[in-house]
């Protein structure tokens, strides 16, 4: 190529020499590079399509599987470079786009968009009538969440970076929710819409010895939910109540929630001396909401507290809630001598929710007195933590670590109404010892362990971490140039011996992974994990207060593998075949199997054209709920065109 250019220049040179002045040669840098991945998916689904949609939700049709391109401007006018990537468009349940545009020393712009569909309809989850063969699809939904984020960083000076950002998170969908009317519960249709807009801006000051980030932001919230019904709805309780059948004939229930918040963020780091690093942050937010609630319902209904049967009810409610939330952190790292580091960190997190409002409930048929009730509550949480750690590089190959953490706090929340209302409070007092080491005896072997053991005087909840040991150990060995192994062991053992609680929780995970390249043409990646979970805790049966024990077990095998093989090539083009997939098999409280084998074939047709096909199988089964199983074959085939 270079010789060609040289010859050409020799030929052209005499001609150019006659001209008074030659224009500079245009840049040969490509302006647009990238690839587009188009395909078609065929599916064959057997078993429960509702559960398939809840777990996988991939269907037939043409797809834009991926798109990736870079646009560069050799003249650097509006931008130096724009990178765009997009994935899974054309009907898939998760679509994404990302765009990054930069101009050196002027700006950096990022845009991110995601659209994720959530479908959830599991008959076993919330269908009290299932045993009678009636499936009312209770507590199911189909929503889409769309998230957009824009951020613009400006570089007016080398060390001062102002930034502006905007984000929107919105959700919209339908579902089936329940209308609870004292004795009976009625599955009803539901519309949901919510959106949160987030605006923020600030400045980063980045100097050699210190940095500060100041950010001010705000959000606005809108959350509308409508539940409605018309026609006879017998609900979940089919038995007469005091001789009278209960049913719903009409419902209109609406929540109109608006909210906003301001928030402030101030971050600071510095290294005033070569042996000191300082860190500090102050975070404050104050979200608040205003709620309008309306409810109209008709049918044969009962008011439990006065045993009043009625046919029409109206309720109107209004409430406001505020939640000032302050967090702060100060920390430093000292390096008094070369091999020793001391890390000290203190943090506080204070959150108070205060709410007040009024709910007016009126029985309109037969006419009865209006019952106003005050809506008011207070939740207060104060959390503090102090931690110190000492890290010593005992040798160039061994680092030892030890430390101590003390966490303390208190919380208040409304007590249940049946206990007389008011507030109940609890405390947190926890002391934890920290230890660990990192050992690299030879370049190819790394051993690492992290241990945390704690004892508590108080904890907020019965299942909170109380007296616990948490440990992770990891070994990584490069057995040969092309073979590396990794083993990971992790454990969490939490005990709360308080009489009546007797919580015994043990979670253990053992994992082994291998990366092997036996030849230039073959790569093997594999991973196996064995996880076991045991949880025992005492509780009282709510009706008879008889002591019971909640037992939960989850013992699982998980494996992932992918073998990638470069097939014999032709015309300097190399087809590739990859196969493997994952499996999950569990026993215990909810025995489940989930298989996802796959095979991929990519065959280059020309230098810039690739034919790709992928086959996947999804097999899902549950022993206790075998009607929820499904099997699906997916074949996706298409072309990747690159430029």
């Amino acid at each position, binding site marked *: 190529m270079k010789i060609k250019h040289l010859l050409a220049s020799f030929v052209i040179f005499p001609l150019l020499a006659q001209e008074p002045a030659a224009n500079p040669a245009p840049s040969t840098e490509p302006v647009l590079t990238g690839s587009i991945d188009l395909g078609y998916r065929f599916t064959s689904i057997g078993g429960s399509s509702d559960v398939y949609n809840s777990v996988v939700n991939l269907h037939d049709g043409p797809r834009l599987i991926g798109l990736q391109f870079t646009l560069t401007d050799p003249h650097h006018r509006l931008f130096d470079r724009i990178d765009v990537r997009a994935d899974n468009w054309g009907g898939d349940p998760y679509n994404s786009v990302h765009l990054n545009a930069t101009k050196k020393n002027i700006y950096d712009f990022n845009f991110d968009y995601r659209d*994720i569909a959530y479908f959830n309809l599991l008959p076993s989850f919330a269908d009290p009538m299932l045993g009678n063969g009636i499936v009312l699809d209770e507590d199911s939904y189909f929503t889409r969440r769309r998230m957009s984020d824009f951020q613009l960083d400006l570089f007016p000076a080398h060390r001062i970076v102002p930034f502006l950002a905007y984000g929107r998170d919105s959700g919209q969908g339908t579902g089936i929710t329940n209308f*609870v009317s004292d004795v009976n519960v009625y599955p009803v249709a539901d519309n949901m819409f919510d959106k949160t807009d987030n605006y923020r801006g600030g400045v980063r000051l980045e100097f050699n010895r210190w940095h500060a980030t100041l950010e001010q932001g705000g959000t606005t919230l809108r959350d509308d939910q409508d539940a409605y019904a018309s026609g006879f709805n017998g609900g979940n309780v089919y038995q007469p109540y005091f001789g009278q059948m209960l049913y719903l004939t009409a419902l209109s229930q609406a929540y109109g929630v608006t909210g906003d918040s301001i928030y402030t963020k101030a971050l600071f780091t510095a290294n005033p001396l070569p042996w000191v690093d300082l860190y500090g942050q102050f975070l404050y937010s104050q979200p608040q909401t205003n709620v309008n609630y309306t409810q109209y319902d008709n049918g044969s209904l009962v008011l439990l507290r006065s045993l009043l049967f009625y046919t029409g009810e109206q309720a109107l409610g209004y409430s406001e809630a505020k939640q000032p939330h302050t967090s702060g952190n100060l920390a430093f790292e000292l390096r008094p001598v070369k091999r020793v580091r001391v890390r000290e960190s203190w943090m506080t997190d204070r959150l108070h929710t205060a709410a007040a409002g009024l709910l007016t409930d009126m029985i309109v048929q037969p006419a009865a007195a209006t019952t106003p009730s005050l809506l008011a509550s207070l939740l207060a949480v104060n959390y503090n933590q102090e931690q110190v750690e000492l890290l010593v590089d005992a040798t160039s190959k061994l680092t030892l670590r030890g430390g101590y953490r003390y966490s303390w706090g208190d919380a208040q929340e409304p007590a249940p109404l049946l206990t007389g209302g008011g507030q109940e409070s609890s405390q947190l007092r926890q002391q934890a010892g920290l230890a660990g080491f990192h050992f690299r005896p030879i370049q190819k072997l790394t051993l690492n362990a992290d241990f945390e053991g704690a004892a508590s005087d108080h904890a907020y909840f019965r299942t909170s971490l109380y007296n616990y040991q948490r440990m992770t150990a990891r070994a990584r060995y490069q057995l040969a140039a092309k073979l590396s192994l990794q083993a990971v062991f992790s454990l969490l053992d939490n005990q709360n011996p308080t009489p009546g609680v007797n919580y015994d929780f043990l979670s253990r995970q053992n994992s082994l992974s291998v990366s092997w390249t036996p030849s230039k043409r073959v790569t093997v990646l594999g991973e196996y994990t064995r996880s076991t979970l045991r949880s025992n805790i005492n509780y009282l049966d709510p009706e008879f207060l008889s002591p019971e024990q909640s037992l939960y077990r989850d013992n699982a095998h998980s494996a*992932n593998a992918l073998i990638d093989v470069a097939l014999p090539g032709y015309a300097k083009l190399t087809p590739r075949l990859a196969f493997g997939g994952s499996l*999950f098999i569990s026993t215990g409280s909810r025995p489940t199997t989930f298989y996802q084998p796959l095979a991929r074939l990519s065959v280059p047709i020309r230098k810039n054209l690739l034919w790709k096909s992928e086959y996947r199988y999804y097999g899902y089964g549950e022993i206790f709920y075998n009607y929820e199983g499904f099997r699906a074959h997916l074949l996706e085939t298409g072309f990747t065109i690159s430029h």
Partner: protein
Amino acid sequence: MRSNSAALFLLLCWPAGAQTAPAAPAASTAPTVPTYVGSQTCQPCHEDIYNAIQKSPHGQVDTQKHRWEHEACESCHGPGSKHADSAEASAIVNPAKLTAARTDRICLNCHLNQPTHIGRPESVHARNQVACTACHSVHGHGPNGLVPRKAAAVNELCAGCHTAVWAEFQRPFKHRLPEGAMSCVDCHNPHGSIFQANFQSYAANEPACFKCHGNLRGPFTYEHAPVRLEGCGACHEPHGSANPRMLARAEVRYLCLECHTNRPAAPGPIKNPPALGGVPPAFHNLLSPQFRNCTVCHLKVHGSYVSQELLK
């Protein structure tokens, strides 16, 4: 060059030295202090790396006045004159072979004073001696070459160490990470955070969960305290679960009853109970399918705007 001069000096001095008492060798054993030679010196032997760096964000180090101007390579590898003279690998600092702490110091020389590192003292990675170079490819090519940006590539990088966590994502109910719709860094800040498990924050100090689940952010008139005190992980297994809705128990009632029990039978306000969340005796007969999933009635389990019992 230096060794040739020393040899010539030795030859000239030898006769004189032979006539007198043995003298100390003339400065030949004194260690030479390495000096900076500039990135251009590195280019001929390390052309591919040099070219890659020029197109990466680290390329701007070469243009930083008053700091590392024209010395981008030596900003990490230290002064390179010895290595340039001898071409020996041992004559220059190789961050890949240093302890994690020393490697990190090299990176933090420039990067400490940036907002991403504000949570470093609490960082699980820093605590476990995971060096910056474990994730960042310092010689990476192109503006996005230092670390993966695409969600699937980020997940692959994290899964390389966190194999057991990645195994949880192979369970049927999980966040959409294996599909590439989300990445680990959507929820976790690998550089560290004051929140547990290097958790990201949203709107200053709220959990990152609310970035996508804004409708559950509240504040609610009636909060469900564990959401605020212990986070979503009190009931959900966010990496993946065999239980619907990523719940931590196979049936909802057990998840609820493990906390909501043990209240003394006598009604009345309870001061300093052993734990929050106890409830008084109720008419719920757990043998009835109606009461097996508490969220059939207590719908607003994340918090309610109108009902203290979270019924509507």
